[in-house]
């Protein structure tokens, strides 16, 4: 009691107070993510130092891995593709305050559907129709996996965060079952994975690098999403429903339908990421298809301020972090886990820094 009232008195003597700002200035909005990244790298350096490694050497190895040569840049682009697609998917759900963290499972389902199309449904089709069919299959697979938490949320009120997360485990186990069981390549020397796709199912690559057509999918998806959000009535409904669900209901917006549609769209984008991974990178369905792209997508979306342009930028940045982490594992024998550790730290600082975008100090 006495302690609390002491705090009150101290607060009242303060000449400054925090007050809500309606419109954060542009400088603040751009500065906060940049400063968060810098502070996160500094914090990461301390953690690396404490664990007995040299942070400068670690960061240098990471930067060299990601940007040091054309190969590194190409690998960064390769990893940016799934991050971009899943990040866009997560962002559209987050915009409606739907906390879909199931992008990982939705990615796997897209990959499974696309693999089934290439290997078992239409293995003899030529490239253009086959790849089109695989794109559709990937979108549908992801959408189905996103629909489950969407429908459950809309009709029973079950928390979509937990349902979508649980489905990640189910999807990954299902794909493990396929690659160890019925879809296993009999000539695979015991390695779990399907046969290679027919060449018609391979996404075209740029020159001798691994960068593939998926990059175009991602950029097109970003533009389409931007148009939906900024130029259509539906995009406006999503924004209103996210900001103020009651107002949306009174305005006659069909909240349930929108929840289901957004979760399906969110899942479909992640499913497309899965399709482009199997068709563009691996040319088969294999174990450990994704090193957690669906989780990193959450950071991509938030760091990109849920805005398509921001997400494009951030997905390249975080892809560089992942490539750098891999390089660390190969070059210095350190776990690639430095990358998710730094990602989490960036997000912490960003969240803390957002206080500055919503509040400001004012004189009493």
């Amino acid at each position, binding site marked *: 009691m006495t302690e609390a009232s002491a705090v009150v008195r101290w607060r009242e003597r303060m000449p400054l107070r925090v007050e809500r700002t309606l419109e954060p200035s542009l400088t603040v909005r751009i500065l906060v993510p940049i400063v968060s990244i810098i502070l996160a790298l500094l914090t990461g350096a301390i953690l690396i130092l404490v664990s007995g490694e040299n942070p400068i050497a670690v960061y240098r190895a990471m930067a060299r891995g990601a940007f040091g040569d054309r190969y590194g840049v190409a690998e960064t682009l390769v990893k940016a593709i799934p991050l971009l697609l899943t990040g866009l998917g997560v962002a559209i759900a987050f915009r409606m305050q739907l*906390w879909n963290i199931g992008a990982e499972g939705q990615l796997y389902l897209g990959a499974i559907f696309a693999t089934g199309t290439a290997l078992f449904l239409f293995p003899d089709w030529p490239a253009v129709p086959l790849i089109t069919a695989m794109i559709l299959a990937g979108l549908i697979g992801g959408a189905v996996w996103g629909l489950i938490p969407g429908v459950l949320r809309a009709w029973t009120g079950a928390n979509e965060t937990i349902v979508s997360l649980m489905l990640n485990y189910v999807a990954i*186990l299902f794909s493990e079952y396929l690659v160890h069981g019925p879809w296993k390549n009999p000539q695979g020397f015991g390695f779990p994975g399907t046969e290679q796709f027919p060449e018609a199912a391979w996404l075209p690559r740029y020159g001798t690098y691994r960068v593939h057509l998926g990059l175009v999918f991602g950029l097109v998806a970003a533009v389409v999403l931007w148009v939906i959000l900024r130029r259509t009535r539906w995009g406006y409904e999503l924004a209103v429903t996210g900001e103020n669900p009651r107002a949306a209901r009174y305005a006659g917006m069909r909240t349930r339908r929108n929840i289901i549609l957004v979760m399906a769209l969110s899942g479909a984008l992640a499913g497309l990421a899965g399709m482009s991974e199997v068709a563009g990178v691996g040319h088969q369905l294999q174990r450990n298809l994704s090193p957690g792209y669906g989780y990193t997508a959450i950071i991509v979306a938030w760091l990109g301020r849920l805005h398509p342009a921001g997400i494009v930028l951030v997905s390249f940045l975080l892809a560089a972090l992942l490539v750098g982490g891999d390089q660390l594992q190969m070059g210095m024998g350190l*776990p690639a886990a430095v990358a998710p550790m730094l990602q989490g730290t960036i997000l912490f600082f960003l969240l803390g820094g957002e206080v500055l975008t919503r509040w400001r100090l004012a004189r009493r």
Partner: protein
Amino acid sequence: MSEVWTTDFLTAVLAAAIPAGTAILFACLGELLAERAGVLNLGVEGMMLMGALGGFAFCYWTDSAWIGAIGALAAGAAMATIHAVLTVSLRANQVVSGLALTLFGTGLSSYLGRNLVGKPAPDRFSDLAIPVLHEIPGLGRILFDQDALVYISFVLVPLLWLWVYRTRQGLELRAVGERPEAADAMGLSVTGLRYAYVIVGGALAGLGGAAISLGTNPGWTEGMTAGRGWIAVALVIFAGWNPARAALGAYLFGGVEAAQFRLQSIGIGVSPFFLNMLPYLFTILVLVLATGEAARRRIGAPAALGRPYLREERG
């Protein structure tokens, strides 16, 4: 198939269900306290992982599982402090901050634990049969031939129930989670109480991690909690924010996990991949049913759950 369900099999499953459920139970009780205070913390998985690592690491350095348990409590509390600073003081989005905590804990634990993977545990919490009681047929083996952490959880559940529902402190806790404005007007420190319960909740999640790394699966491997932190978050809803129901739910999950392993070892004709899906599918089922029941009986989440409190904006 029918000869699988013998008394012996059921006793074995139930005896294994309790320690398997204990890890989830600690984490669930911790999350329950934080949510009762109005703070949603989705970082349970990350805090559990750091607890599992902290517990094993301290045990590895000191050869004592008890010091390990203290390390686990500290690791979980330290992680939760980050969440408290961000969500209580800086009023950040609780959902995103919790997700960040899970990502951070997953990454940090595999980075810091890189040299401990596969190391043998010098000590662990092993089963202590309680004299006399453990000789009760059936029940004795299920309840009274367990490790120390299990016994601690047996004591903790009724204590927390009393704390939440029968003490002045419990009333204050509920007030902060339901009507922070009123609690503030009563002269309670909303910030202070929220900090305290979030941090205690994190410590319990850390202990839940240690119940795995020093109990059921001694040792450290990356991501060894395998989603149990998320199951704990779902169970809080199933429990209707009541510690006693949390215990029930946790043992139910322990049972699913134990049955899955037994069925696998008997070698029934279902792929292990499908058996491994069971706990996750079961979580979804429980969540859907519990949400429906909560809506029908009007037992809801604490009213201020997820809402930051700012005195200047109280209505």
